[in-house]
């Protein structure tokens, strides 16, 4: 699996997140176990201390209340052994019976509480140890007595300490006798079971979490590969698509939203490319076609001129025709280059604020000059306001002159051309109407096509490249406007240019 792949990143991310979550969760579990175990130990110690005390109190209730009795009671309770000092206890039968009953119950409780595992110490607050359980070596007893100091008067106190590498938890409670709190019960329990349990639990976590992570990352990685398989399929198909087989499309069988959208967008893109290539292809053959005609004429003229000796006038005429055709080809090529720029790189335009009135006055003046040879009248109708449009002056001039040249070409001598300018709310409308024969309705929508030659009403086809109106349309589009062609009620053609206001 490659390092720089989505699959790897997702697997790692997923595994890391899972790892963090598992660790946190494990940590919480461990901590809560820890706390509850230690709390439980303390509660246990409390209970044990309580039962020891209450057992002793039960004894005291039955027997005499004196120091010797207390010793005996403590010894019986804590060690389950011991005799009343001095031999026979001065007890009534009733007392004896009660004691037996008490001891029986205490023995049960003692076993149930596991008190024989614990270190029990019964001391006088002065520091004298009176009774200790049998498992307490004297070293420990001294330590216990030391720990007592300073805490004698607390109602209850806990302490943790170590003895011979063992962690012990100690509880210390005062014991009332004869109305005085002179004594203390100390019970110490080993924390070893807890420590062992926690260590084992920790071990389990530290082993299991990495194993889980490794497993999930492998399984996850496997599934991610399957999930991303559609992407691989798309990639394979994409590789096969070249400009020669743009007809291929991706199949649509993916149900996932992202894949569906991807496939759709991809197929649309291929369609657009396909169309674009077709356009270019058609355009190329159109260009070849358009340039072949002047070349055929040049060739024809030359071949005929060379067939035999001709007169000077004939040679001059042939050369003139060839020159005209050469110029026609050059114009066509220039127009084509301009069109290419307009279609693909309109940044050659420099936009500026144009005063509408000034702009069209100038166009009007020049149109009158151009049309004078055919004695065509050019009229301008324009509202007098200070409207402005945003545009490239040179190219806008070209736009309008292309239309006006056409108008002049198609209008018979002594005809009329009207330029009418209307301000609508958001855009400027310029209508150029001529008194020519108009555009046959079947050609109306094709009039802006590249190389479209309209041969009606014009006997000098050669003067145009057929690109004038295409160029005009492209310029209008770049300005955010449009051109529309229709026929007027008088029969002539009307070209309407729309340009947005500032």
């Amino acid at each position, binding site marked *: 699996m490659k390092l720089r792949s989505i699959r790897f990143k997702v697997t790692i991310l997923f595994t890391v997140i899972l790892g963090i979550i598992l660790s946190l969760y494990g940590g919480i579990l461990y901590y809560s176990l820890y706390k509850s175990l230690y709390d439980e130990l303390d509660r246990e110690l409390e209970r044990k201390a309580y039962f020891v005390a209450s057992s002793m109190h039960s004894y005291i209730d039955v027997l005499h209340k004196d120091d010797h009795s207390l010793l005996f009671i403590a010894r019986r309770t804590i060690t389950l052994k011991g005799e009343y000092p001095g031999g026979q206890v001065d007890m009534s039968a009733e007392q004896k019976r009660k004691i037996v009953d008490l001891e029986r119950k205490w023995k049960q409780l003692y076993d149930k509480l596991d008190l024989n595992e614990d270190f029990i110490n019964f001391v006088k607050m002065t520091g004298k140890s009176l009774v200790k359980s049998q498992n307490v070596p004297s070293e420990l007893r001294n330590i216990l007595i030391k720990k007592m100091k300073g805490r004698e008067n607390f109602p209850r106190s806990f302490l943790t300490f170590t003895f011979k590498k063992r962690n012990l938890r100690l509880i210390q409670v005062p014991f009332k006798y004869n109305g005085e709190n002179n004594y203390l019960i100390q019970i110490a329990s080993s924390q070893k079971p807890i420590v062992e349990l926690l260590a084992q639990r920790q071990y389990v976590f530290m082993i299991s979490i990495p194993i889980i992570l490794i497993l999930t990352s492998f399984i996850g990685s496997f599934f991610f590969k399957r999930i991303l398989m559609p992407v691989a399929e798309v990639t394979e198909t994409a590789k096969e698509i070249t400009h020669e087989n743009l007809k291929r499309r991706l199949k649509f069988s993916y149900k996932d939203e992202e894949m569906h959208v991807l496939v759709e967008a991809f197929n649309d893109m291929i369609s657009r490319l396909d169309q674009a290539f077709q356009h270019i292809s058609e355009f190329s053959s159109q260009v070849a076609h358009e340039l072949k005609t002047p070349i*055929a004429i040049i060739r024809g003229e030359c071949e*005929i001129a060379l067939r035999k000796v001709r007169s000077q006038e004939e040679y001059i005429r042939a050369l003139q025709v060839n020159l005209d055709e050469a110029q026609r080809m050059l114009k066509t090529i220039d127009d084509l280059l301009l069109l290419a720029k307009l279609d693909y790189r309109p940044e050659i335009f420099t936009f500026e604020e144009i005063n509408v009135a000034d702009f069209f006055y100038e166009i009007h003046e020049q149109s009158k000059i151009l049309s004078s040879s055919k004695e065509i009248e050019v009229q301008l109708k324009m509202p007098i306001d200070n409207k402005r449009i945003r545009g490239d002056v040179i190219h806008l001039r070209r736009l309008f002159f292309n239309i006006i040249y056409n108008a002049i070409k198609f209008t018979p001598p002594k005809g009329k051309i009207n330029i009418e300018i209307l301000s609508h709310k958001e855009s400027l409308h310029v209508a150029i109407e001529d008194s020519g024969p108009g555009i046959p309705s079947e050609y109306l929508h094709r009039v802006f096509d590249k190389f479209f030659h309209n041969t009606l009403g014009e006997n*000098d*086809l050669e003067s145009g490249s057929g690109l004038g109106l295409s160029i005009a349309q492209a310029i209008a589009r770049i300005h955010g406007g449009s051109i529309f062609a229709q026929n007027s009620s008088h029969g002539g053609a009307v070209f309407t240019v729309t340009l947005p206001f500032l």
Partner: protein
Amino acid sequence: MHRILIIDDQQKVLDIYQRLFTEEGMEVVLAQNASDGIRALIGEQVIDLVLLDINMYGINGGYIKEIIDEYDPQVKVIVSSVHPIDQQIKFIPRAYDYFDKSQGTEILLKQVKRALLLN
């Protein structure tokens, strides 16, 4: 005298062909659009050969060819165009011959002479 009808929308092309065939001793009738062409065809003068330009857009050369076939199947038609020959054949099948204008006047002359059974 053989008579050739030339139908082509470009004046300069008509000029060239007229001089070409006239110098070869043929009579030439010129037409710059479909209606003129058909009028010349069904007119009084007998036409031996039609040199028909096909403009893929605009005048429909195929339409003219059909009329020629209907009117007089004996008249030979040579299709001429700047388009490649295979495209011309697709556009107007079953013409007598096809001429690509960029091939030059020598070839055209040969084709016309062959059509008129001159050497």
